[in-house]
């Protein structure tokens, strides 16, 4: 697979159409908004923590297929893991979508399970922000007291 077919593969289209954990958590311990002012993608992520453990996670909002599928997959990947594990996943995921496509590192993709489906994003530099928006928001939530807003333009992040 390459190019568009890889970017818009079945699994991603499915997560876009039927996002998992697409819910608001009332009385969430942590709430963070992820916002990309350039394209308007906007999500709120809700977290319930048990100490360092992500007990429950939900998200709501709107954006492109890549940002929504990525947010959905992220929630399935981090539910029930510790803060540290979630941050490690983020680091690996970030490396995956920002990797140099010319020296493809398959091993990395395997390790990430379903998140690996987003590997195709690396071929579309304009879309890396879409794929990592929810992750940046999660990162913000895990490292904030309770409420925060994370914008993709704040720190030139990608």
């Amino acid at each position, binding site marked *: 697979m390459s190019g568009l077919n890889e970017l818009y593969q079945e699994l991603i289209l499915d997560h876009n159409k039927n996002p998992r954990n697409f819910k608001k958590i009332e009385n969430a311990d942590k709430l963070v908004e992820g916002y990309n002012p*350039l394209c308007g993608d906007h999500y709120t992520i809700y977290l319930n923590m048990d100490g360092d453990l992500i007990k429950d996670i939900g998200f709501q909002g709107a954006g492109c297929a890549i940002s929504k599928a990525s947010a959905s997959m992220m929630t399935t990947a981090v539910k029930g893991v510790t803060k540290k594990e979630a941050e490690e996943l983020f680091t690996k995921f970030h490396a995956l979508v920002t990797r140099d496509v010319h020296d493809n590192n398959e091993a990395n993709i395997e390790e990430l399970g379903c998140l690996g489906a987003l590997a195709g994003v690396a071929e579309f530099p304009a*879309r890396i922000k879409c794929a990592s928006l929810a992750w940046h928001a999660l990162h913000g939530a895990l490292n904030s007291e309770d409420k925060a807003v994370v914008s993709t333009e704040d720190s030139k992040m990608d």
Partner: protein
Amino acid sequence: MKTQSQSTATEIETAPSFDVQRIREDFPILKQKVHGKPLVYLDNAATSQKPQAVIDTLTRYYLGQNANIHRGVHYLSEIATYEYEKARGKVKLFLNASDSREIIFVRGTTEGINLVKDTYGRKFIGKNDEIVISAMEHHSNIVPWQILCEEKGAKLRVIPMNDRGELLLDEYEKLLNEHTKFVSVVYVSNSLGTINPIKKIIQRAHERGIPVLVDGAQAASHLKVNVQDLDCDFFVFSGHKVFGPTGIGALYGKTKYLEQMPPYQGGGDMISSVTFEKTTYNVLPYKFEAGTPNIADVIGMGTGIDYVTGVGFEAITAYEKELLKYATEAISNIEGVRIIGTAEEKAGVISFVLGTVHAHDVGTILDQEGIAVRTGHHCTQPVMQRFGIPATARASFAFYNTMEEVDALARGLGKVKEIFGA
């Protein structure tokens, strides 16, 4: 002899009124392939491509004319000054201003609006005064006025629009009152394509003695602009949207206003004499052009203007009308498409949403087909809010676009639907 002249006559009669293929030859970038497909450039509202003549002008300037202007007696400086001022004359004719001194070079539309806000606005707009803009302004005609309102305690009032993207003139009239000190409205909307009844808008304001600025960023490449006929007090546009270089544009202002306005920036060229006690400002237009200007691009912009006026606005308007009609049909025939901006009077801009597919995904898939469109809010977030959508995909045309390119766009949208099962 006789046959020859006869055949020429028939040729002229049957020749297509607009030879788009010949025009495309003048734009080298259009020959390019993108992702292995011929480039279909439909992002002209963001910036237009440049004809060879403009590229040559820039090269010629740096190869043989480069010098600073208005300050040398040497040969190159005289040539550069001559070319620079000649370009001012071209802008004057382009806008049909009555005097070259009413043409001020700025970085673009954004700087032009900010100049008026910083000079006219700061001097003449105060507490509880009102500034009127419209619901379809580009951020560059919203934010400067908001900053001024904040600074002065003035208020921003907004002319609403209907669901087709047309301004409500009755509502506009109701907004005008004794507190209204300025009106700043876009001529052609970059996100909806609407051509506003700008002359009427100006008349209504003038009946109350209120000056009007026209954001002509999108108008300048599609319509013949005549500032004297419009009777606008200020008009701004960007060279890069009129087939010229980036980083340059012009502000037209009526002499009576420009003379009352304080300078914009202080520095060289904008003064006639300086002592530590007192500085006397230079005459128009130099009072507003501090420092070494963007000489090369001013001259390049002049060539861009020569190019469009050479093609001729009558021909351009007629051809673009056909193109818009053809494209509107082709796009609205695709199931699931909703066109945003369906005004009676429109320029070559089609904003649309495609079912539940996000504009960003539309843009990525079209790009793989070599088709460049803009996706997002087009620096008009309030327009998106008005229509309750996060973003649109936008195809915007120039006179070098073809019907075949419209067909390619329609095929590309078919591909989007295929991928998304929409």
